[in-house]
């Protein structure tokens, strides 16, 4: 008989894919995350549902924060001015680092078998 599967597996995978999307393979990791979310959308395990929902929602919002907002800045400011670069770099670095740190926190909670709601960005239902 197979050993019962660890209930944390999908939660850990979801949070790890969220981090890989931010750090190593943007886009590709998000597609894998969507596939994982689709495959386990009807999971009876609240831990799986929670972390999948958080990872997908926050990845989408992170995409907006990291692509749309900088694009808007690039289109509206004069990039020949050092101050424009200071603003852009500061925004991208702080925003990206905060998203990564929240992801690390999410991953730690998943490894510990606990649910997690991303502050401000996360979904309150799952």
């Amino acid at each position, binding site marked *: 008989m197979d050993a019962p599967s660890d209930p944390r597996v999908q939660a850990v995978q979801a949070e790890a894919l969220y981090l890989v999307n931010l750090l190593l393979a943007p886009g590709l990791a998000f597609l894998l995350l969507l596939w994982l979310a689709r495959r386990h959308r009807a999971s009876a395990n609240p831990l799986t549902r929670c972390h999948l929902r958080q990872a997908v929602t926050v990845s989408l919002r992170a995409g907006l924060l990291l692509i749309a907002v900088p694009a808007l800045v690039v289109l509206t400011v004069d990039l020949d001015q*050092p101050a424009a*670069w*200071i603003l852009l*770099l*500061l925004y991208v*670095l*702080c925003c990206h*680092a905060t998203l990564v*740190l929240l992801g690390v926190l999410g991953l730690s909670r998943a490894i510990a078998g606990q649910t997690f709601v991303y502050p401000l960005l996360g979904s309150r239902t799952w």
Partner: protein
Amino acid sequence: MKYKSQAVAKPYFIAAIGLFLGQIVFGLIMGLQYVVGDFLFPAIPFNVARMVHTNLLIVWLLFGFMGAAYYLIPEESERELHSPKLALAMFWIFLVAGAATILGYLLVPYASLAKWTGNDLLATMGREFLEQPLPTKIGIVVVALAMLYNLSMTVLRGRKTTINLVMLIGLWGLAIFFLFSFYNPGNLVKDKYYWWWVVHLWVEGVWELIMGAMLAFVLIKVTGVDREVIEKWLYVIIAMALITGLIGTGHHYYWIGAPEYWQWWGSVFSALEPIPFFMMTVFAFNMVNRRRREHPNKAAVLWALGTGVMAFLGAGVWGFLHTLAPVNFYTHGSQITAAHGHMAFYGAYAMVVMTMISYTMPLMRGRAANSRSAQVVEMWSFWLMTVAMVFITLFLTAAGILQIWLQRVAAEPMSFMAAQEQVALFYWMREVAGLVFLIGVLLYIGSFFIKGKSEAATA
């Protein structure tokens, strides 16, 4: 603690933590001098603060490595240390020499210090990280040789394991490569060429062996995973570290006047250098996931996992960022280098020493782990220091990107100081992150004084 003589590690660790605090204080002084140029001038000029900051780093890490070796090697060799008295004598010699050197930097003009300490007999001073006066350098050699004699005799007469052999080879390498600090040719190209044999072959060579051995030792203890599994990982990691790190020295030879082929050799091999660090991350997480027991010292497990991640990010990713010759052509000697240096030293070496301290200190104080409340404070200190270091690195990276663009890429490049003025905001933010780091260090020190119910030591 299995052997009484392992207790000699304790003063080494206490000294390491004290010097670590000093390093951070001088880092903050320097950080402020970046934006308030005359802060504490002329009492502590920038060049002196920088020298004290970097030298304290080296000295406290050496104290940490020595303390770790004095704890680890008797346990791995299954016998008492050959001579605990010699180890303690060397501790005091090293501490007095280190303190005298730092006081010399602070109280005496560097040129006078060089004159008074016999630099005219054998000129070794004045080079970054190797600023120590001749007597201090000789003292380091004496302390290292005495330590190696002590540890080698312990291993020779005891059990030989992969961990104690790798540790010992790392320490021998550390001592041997330091001898190049005495070679100071008049030709500047040759001087730089061999200077890297100390600096690079330490941090991207033999220190990785020491780090791997320390991490493996702690992981065996806290996870209960089979020694055979951990030792196989260690073999592969150190092989990769040496394969990539030795020829990877070439990434320092791009612009110093060495032959052009180093741009290829340096680029290719140093591009592979993140591999051993990535393996260390996988190694640490894999071992903790496969753990056979729940060790009561959660803080030590956290430090071990953090070491893997931060070493990979700081040494691996941030190193790779600017290691290829065509990239380094623009980034060389900019704040990108400072960003890499900060996270790499913290992630790889400061954290592995704190992993070892976190695991061994409770045992040397007669308990398996500190009380829950002490561990909570220690884990807070871990997160404060680590998050602060991430932000220090990011702000320095941002400063570096802007510095390179303004100073080296823009159609009308700015002068160095004009570019520095433009990036001042990032320096202020780095200073704030540095203050958070200091709070982390103070909490870390405070965690040693928190009492509470702790589990008795079994080994």
